[in-house]
């Protein structure tokens, strides 16, 4: 039986799924209902938590963490000193793009895991050639 190709998940995909006001909410609601194996960065989890903390409150931020905990198809890649060194290079390489460390770690993970599909509404994640799920050819 064929298995689904794994995809990288960015903070924007998580927020689009969780925020029903977002214009991409229907797309990500459909994608998350039957997802392939998913990978993300520990920094994405931190960003998502920070978004709920800043935009809402501690309770919503905890609900976000509960969601991540329940999302059993998701593997979270750690971010340590080795990743910092590597992402530092990417941030410099794309110095004109205002890449966050979370974005850079995402690009690194996709490169190291040979992941070509990215769930994101952030065009930065397509900088190294990954196909964004919001691109017309992928919808």
């Amino acid at each position, binding site marked *: 039986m064929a298995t689904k190709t794994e995809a990288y998940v960015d903070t924007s995909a998580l927020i689009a799924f*969780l925020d029903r*006001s977002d214009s991409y909410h229907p797309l990500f609601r459909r994608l998350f209902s039957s997802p392939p194996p998913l990978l993300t960065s520990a920094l994405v989890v931190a*960003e998502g938590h920070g978004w709920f903390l800043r935009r809402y409150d501690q309770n919503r931020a905890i609900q976000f963490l509960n969601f991540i905990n329940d999302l059993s198809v998701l593997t979270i890649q750690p971010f340590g000193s080795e990743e910092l060194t590597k992402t530092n290079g990417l941030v410099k390489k794309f110095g004109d793009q205002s890449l966050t460390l979370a974005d850079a770690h995402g690009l690194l993970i996709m490169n190291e895991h040979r992941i070509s599909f990215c769930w994101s509404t952030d065009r930065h994640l397509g900088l190294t050639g990954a196909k964004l799920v919001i691109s017309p050819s992928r919808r």
Partner: protein
Amino acid sequence: MIDIPRSTAPNIPHREIENAAAGEIAFQPNPTPSDDDCEYNNLPLASGRVIIPSGSDNMLRTQISLDEQDYKLVKKEAAALGVSVAEYVRRALQSTLPPSGRPRWMRYAGLVESGNPQSSQSIDEIVYGNKD
């Protein structure tokens, strides 16, 4: 084909048969309409457990095992609520199962309504702040 001995499907009304020593609750089927009824001739077997369909109330009969302490607690709570042990277990299951068999995380879909259709594209402004 799974052959169920007739002794496991006696002609008794549906009821719980509780074996306190074993800590088991067996849900016996309703009586079969006739000996020729094929209801028990093609029964599904899940993890070594026979699941017995019932023709009268759209229920499947199965069997669970509880340790003695849990069994006593379940029986006590069910009695306090005035329901059968089976009904108590059904209610407990319904409170924990995800709706319609959906993945657990789908309960969070549309958790918030920010009012911003560009919400997912303006995360950096919220998390890191606007550039001046």
